[in-house]
């Protein structure tokens, strides 16, 4: 793993190297070099299994972190690749040409975080949410509680009880308070 990281540092200027466990490490790479690095890992280093792609919202730094986890089935090692992108204009190069399954991850990220991957198949089609017109819901500034309170309302005849009091009343109706 050290040899791979040394090579990546010189070729792709990776930073923030963290060895999580002997067979798993994380690095950060610039947005412009990310797809070249991923292609290099797949074709040269044998990281042929694409594990996942997800995003983390660092709202306080005005950044989105994209995490690509790649796995080498032969060497039995994993590499997590972090890419920090601007939160105001979240766009990233697509990797769907490397693995066909990546298009699904990118479609979900477009919907849930509003991160665009121009050229990715069906990236603008809704994936999980249909007819959503609010801000992308997995962003930190989307308040689920507020949304639930505004969207849903208690049905008539539905109330809430304190469980202990309710059971006491149900089981021992004659007992005085």
């Amino acid at each position: 793993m050290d040899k791979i990281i040394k090579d990546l540092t010189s070729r792709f200027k990776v930073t923030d190297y963290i060895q999580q466990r002997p067979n798993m490490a994380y690095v950060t790479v610039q947005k412009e070099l990310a797809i070249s690095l991923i292609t290099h890992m797949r074709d040269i280093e044998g990281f042929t299994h694409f594990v996942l792609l997800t995003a983390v919202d660092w709202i306080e730094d005005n950044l989105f972190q994209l995490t690509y986890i790649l796995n080498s089935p032969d060497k039995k090692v994993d590499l997590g690749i972090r890419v920090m992108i601007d939160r105001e204009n979240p766009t990233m190069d697509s990797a769907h040409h490397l693995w066909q399954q990546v298009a699904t991850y990118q479609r979900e990220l477009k919907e849930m975080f509003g991160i665009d991957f121009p050229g990715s198949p069906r990236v603008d089609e809704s994936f999980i949410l249909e007819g959503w017109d609010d801000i992308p819901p997995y962003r930190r500034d989307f308040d689920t509680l507020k949304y639930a309170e505004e969207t849903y309302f208690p049905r008539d005849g539905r109330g809430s009880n304190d469980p202990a009091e309710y059971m006491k009343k149900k089981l021992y109706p004659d007992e005085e308070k």
Partner: protein
Amino acid sequence: MKRNKLIWQPDRSKYPEHDSNGKPIVDLKSQKFTKLWQGPNHPGVTGNMSLELTLSGDEVVEAKTHVGYLHRGFEKLMERRTYMQCFPTSIRMCVAEPDSNEYVLSAAVEELSGIEVPETAQWLRMLALEMARLQVLLRVVPGIASTLSLGLGSQWGMYMREHILDRFEELTGGRIYHMYILPGGVRGQLPDGFKKRMLENLDMIDGFIKRIEDLIFSNNVFKKRTVGVGILKPEWVDQFGVVGPPARGAGFKRDVRKDYPYLKYNEIDFDPFMATDSDIYTRAIVRKQDLIMTVDIIRQILDKIPNDKEIRAKTPNVLHLEIPKGEVYARSESSRGEYGMYIVSDGSKYPRRVNLRGPSYTHAVALLEKMLINANISDVHAIMVSLQTCPPEIER
């Protein structure tokens, strides 16, 4: 075993016509095509998802997976919950096999906070994970045949599964959701007499496996419907991130328990079954062999489990657990394949981000859409069930 494959290879050069990108030109007004929705409520669909099929005659020309019928935003909800409150949420991400969720979440929390799990707890965790795999396989192995109207095996399987759920109830207090694996260890010891009752159940399951071999795997109709049907090409395995039994059925011996041993799997003697024909029948055989292997693994666990009282590591108050800043990816082998969780901690009481990597995310979307092209409409549900799709893990 050499089998004659029944591969239907019609001439695709003339019809339907394809555009320059290789996509079929579908004009619904021409009345040569039919649009058919299979699901979200359909006996041939696993869980709540639907397939939008474009048919030419009885052949699928185009398929699209639609999900969203179950979306509850678990990953987002977990960002507002403490780590302990995440457990009841996480297990609902896969109803059929919730123990994998408990394990990967616990393993991720332990790895980030440097908690060492006692040895007995590791064995008990392994027992819970293998029991979960067993109860799933008891339903899934005959389930493939029941999609082709051979439902008897499924009924036997459900009966056997009830016995395993009884053991789960005895061990954990719950039948479906267990909440047994927690950061630092497990919730309880083996009850008195558990081993004896479990071994009796395993003997019954041995008999069940013999019966389904006769009923399903030697059945001529089942073979004719599944041999050579739903081929998953080996070159698709990496392209679509195929893991677990579908990958093992296509000649890729991938099993997290062997490749990245966790808990005490390196002290257990097992060899995951691999085949190369990669059709529905082969995937059913791989799962049947997995079932046999799981029964054997549980026997070994019961034999080797130490009788130690210590089942929880000394941890700070778990209700106020604060995890050091960092990120971690923890994985395990579920009955469907690699099951992982990626957690990012910002050092507070709440996870910054939780992302689940379930096998169905790729199996049921990109891969299934590819595999259904040129399939006969009557084989769609068997292809789908042979991939063991689980919609909740797509739309966490």
